[in-house]
C-alpha cells in the first residue's frame, strides 16, 4: 500500500476517532455522518472514474437501491437491518452486473448517457411502485441498526459505526489500487486497446470495478436508510448523481483521498455557509469555480502539489484567462 498511504490512513483514523470527543454536538456529528456515507459512494466512484476511466451518472440509483432494499426489507418484511444490508448488497451488485455487461461496451458520452438513463429508470420505479416504495411520498419508520443490545440510534454512536466502515472500505480500496488489479485498471484508463494487447482482460475488469462501486453505493444507501429512517425518491434523483460527480472532481479524480476531501468540502461548506443566508449559493458557486480554475486537478491533489512544489499547478484555463487580458 505504500508508506505514505499507511501514514495518511493512520492520521485519518486518529482524527476520525478524536473528532467527536471535541465537537460532541449532534448537529455537527450528523453532518460528519453524511460526509462518511457520501464518502463511501465517492470512493467507489473514484475507483471507477479516476482509476479505470469509466464515467457513471447512475451512482445515485445504486445508492437508492441499497437504501430502498434495506428500508423495504426491514419495514415490510421485518428483517434485521444487518440481513437487509447484505441482501441489498447482492441485489445492487446483481443489477450493476446486468447493466454493466451492455453499458460498459460503450465509451465516453455514450456510457454517461446509458448510466444516466439507468438512473432515471430506477427513479421512476421508486415513484411508481407505490405498494412497496410508498411512491413520491416515500415511507418512514425504518428501524435503527442494533449491535447486540446496543442500539445505534444516537448521532454519536452512528458516527463511529459509519466511519469505521469508511476506514475499512478505504483500506480495502487502497490495497486494491496498489495491487495487480489496480495497475490493470489504470492501464484501461491509459489506453484500452493497449491494455488489451498487453493481455489485460479489460471487459472483465471494467465490469468488476463497476460492480464494486455499486456495492459501495449500496452500503452507503443502507447506512443512509437506517440513519434518516425516512426515504423518498427525491433524494436519489439525477441531481444527486451530479453532486457525487462534482465531489469527486473537486476533490481530485485520480485519488481516493481526493474523493473523501471533495466529499467533506462539498458537504460541510453549504452548512458553514448557512450564516450568509441568501448569499450562500453565490459563495458556494464561486468557491467551486475558483477551485476548478486554479486547481483543475482537484482540490486535494492541487493543494498537495502546491505545498510540495510551492507553485500553482498548470492550469490551462488560468493561462488562457491571463493571455486574453494581455
Amino acid at each position: 500500500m505504500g508508506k505514505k498511504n499507511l501514514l495518511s490512513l493512520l492520521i485519518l483514523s486518529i482524527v476520525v476517532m478524536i473528532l467527536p470527543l471535541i465537537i460532541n454536538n449532534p448537529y455537527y456529528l450528523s453532518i460528519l455522518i453524511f460526509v462518511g456515507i457520501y464518502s463511501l459512494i465517492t470512493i467507489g466512484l473514484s475507483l471507477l472514474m479516476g482509476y479505470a476511466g469509466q464515467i457513471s451518472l447512475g451512482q445515485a440509483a445504486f445508492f437508492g437501491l441499497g437504501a430502498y432494499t434495506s428500508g423495504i426489507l426491514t419495514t415490510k418484511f421485518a428483517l434485521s437491518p444487518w440481513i437487509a444490508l447484505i441482501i441489498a448488497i447482492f441485489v445492487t451488485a446483481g443489477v450493476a452486473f446486468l447493466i454493466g455487461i451492455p453499458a460498459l461496451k460503450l465509451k465516453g458520452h455514450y456510457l454517461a448517457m446509458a448510466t444516466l438513463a439507468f438512473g432515471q429508470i430506477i427513479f421512476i420505479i421508486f415513484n411508481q411502485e407505490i405498494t412497496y416504495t410508498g411512491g413520491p411520498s416515500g415511507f418512514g419508520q425504518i428501524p435503527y441498526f442494533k449491535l447486540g443490545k446496543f442500539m445505534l440510534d444516537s448521532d454519536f454512536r452512528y458516527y463511529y459505526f459509519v466511519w469505521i466502515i469508511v476506514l475499512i472500505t478505504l483500506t480495502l480500496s487502497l490495497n486494491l489500487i496498489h495491487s495487480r488489479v489496480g495497475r490493470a485498471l489504470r492501464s484501461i484508463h491509459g489506453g484500452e486497446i493497449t491494455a488489451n494487447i498487453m493481455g489485460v482482460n479489460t471487459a472483465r475488469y471494467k465490469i468488476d470495478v463497476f460492480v464494486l462501486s455499486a456495492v459501495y453505493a449500496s452500503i452507503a444507501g443502507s447506512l443512509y436508510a437506517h440513519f434518516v429512517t425516512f426515504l423518498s425518491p427525491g433524494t436519489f434523483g439525477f441531481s444527486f448523481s451530479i453532486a457525487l460527480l462534482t465531489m469527486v472532481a473537486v476533490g481530485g479524480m485520480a485519488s481516493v483521498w481526493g474523493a473523501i476531501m471533495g466529499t467533506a468540502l462539498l458537504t460541510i461548506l453549504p452548512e458553514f455557509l448557512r450564516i450568509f443566508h441568501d448569499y450562500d449559493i453565490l459563495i458556494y458557486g464561486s468557491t467551486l469555480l475558483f477551485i476548478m480554475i486554479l486547481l483543475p486537478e482537484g482540490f486535494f491533489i492541487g493543494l498537495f502539489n502546491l505545498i510540495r512544489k510551492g507553485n500553482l499547478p498548470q492550469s490551462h484555463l488560468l493561462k488562457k484567462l491571463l493571455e486574453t487580458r494581455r
Partner: protein
Amino acid sequence: MTRKTKVATGVVAAIVVALLLVVSFSVWCAALKPYKVGAVFAITGGASWLGEPERNTVKMIEENVNAAGGINGHPLQVIVEDTVGDETKAVTAVKKLIERDKVLAIIGPSRSGTTLAVIPIVQRAKVPLISCAAAEAIVIPVKQWVFKTPQKDSDAVIRIYEYMREHGISKVAIITGTTGFGDQGRKQLKKMAPDYGITIVADETYGPKDTDMTVQLTKIKGTKAQAVINWSIVPAQAIVVKNMRQLGMTIPLFQSHGFGNIKYVQAAGKAAEGIIFPAGRLLAVDTLPNDNPQKEVLSRYKKEYEAKYGESVSTFGGHAWDALHLVILALRAVGPDRAKIRNFIENVKGFVGTGGIFNYSPDDHTGLTKEAFEMLTVKNGKFVVLK
C-alpha cells in the same frame, strides 16, 4: 467664554452623560433574552413558490412583534433555514436548529416529504413542530410533538366532490404530480370517489420538473371524462392548464388547494380563466362579506404583506402566519418551555388564522374542518369566490 458659562456647559454635559448612562442601562436591563423560534422552508428549488412567501411572512411578523415590544419584553428571533425542498437538507437544518440554536419550536417544513423526514427527529428531541405542509400523513396518526396549519387534503377532496355532485358531474379524469402532495391527493381522490358516486375514468401523473403534459392529456381527451382534476403543488401544474387549452379541451378543470398562489395563474395566463379550486379565504378576501369572522385578520395580513414586499399574498405564506402566531400565542401564555408550548397549542380553541378558525385537541393536530375551504375560481386573472 466666561467662567460661569464654562461651569454651566460642564454641568449640562454631566447631566447629558448621566442621562445617557441611565437610559442605556435601562435598555440593557429591558433587553431580555430573545425567544428563538426556528423556521425551515423550501426557499429555493422547485418549491420556492411555497418557501419564499413563508420566509417573507415570518420575517415580517418578527419585525412587527419586536417593534411592538416583543413577547412579554423578550424579543422574538426567528432563525430561517433553507431546505431547497430536499429531505437530507431538511434533516440537517432541523438538527442545527435544535442542537445549535436551541430553538423553542420549529415552523415548517414547507413540503410534505421534508416534514415526514424530520418528524422522527423532533419526536425524539421533544421539540414542537408546526408544519406548513398539507399531507394528512403528517398528523394521522397523531404524533405528540407535530402539528400542522394547512387544511386537510381530504377536506379539499370533499369540497370538490360535493361541488361535482351538485353539478351532475360523475366521470372525472385525475392528473397528479409525483410529489408527496400530489401523491397524497391522488390517494384521497381515489378513496373518496365512490362515496360521491364518482368514477375515475383516467388516472395520470407527471413529474415535478416535466415541461409538457400533452401525452397524458391526450389520453384523458380520449375518455368520457366530464371534468379534469389536477392535483399538484409545483409550478408544473400551470403547464397542465396551458396544454389543455392547446388541445382544445373544454371540460371544466378543477385544481387542488396547491393552486393557491397567484403566480400559478400568471404562469398559465388566459388559460387559467374559469379554473375551480378549494382554498382558504385569504386569496379572495376582497370578495368576502364583511361579517366573516376571518375578514379582519385576512385583510390585515394581506395589506401588511403586500405593502412590504410588493407582491400578492399566497395561502402558503398564510400557513406560516398561522404557525408562527400559534407559537407566539403559546410563548405569551406559558413562556420559553418546549413541553408547555406543545401542551398549549394542543388546547388552542377558536384561534382565528388565515387558513380558518383553528380548534386543536389531543386527537386533532390539524385544527381545521372542511368549512375552512371556500370554492374559488379565476376571473380576469384574479381569484374570486365562486357563487
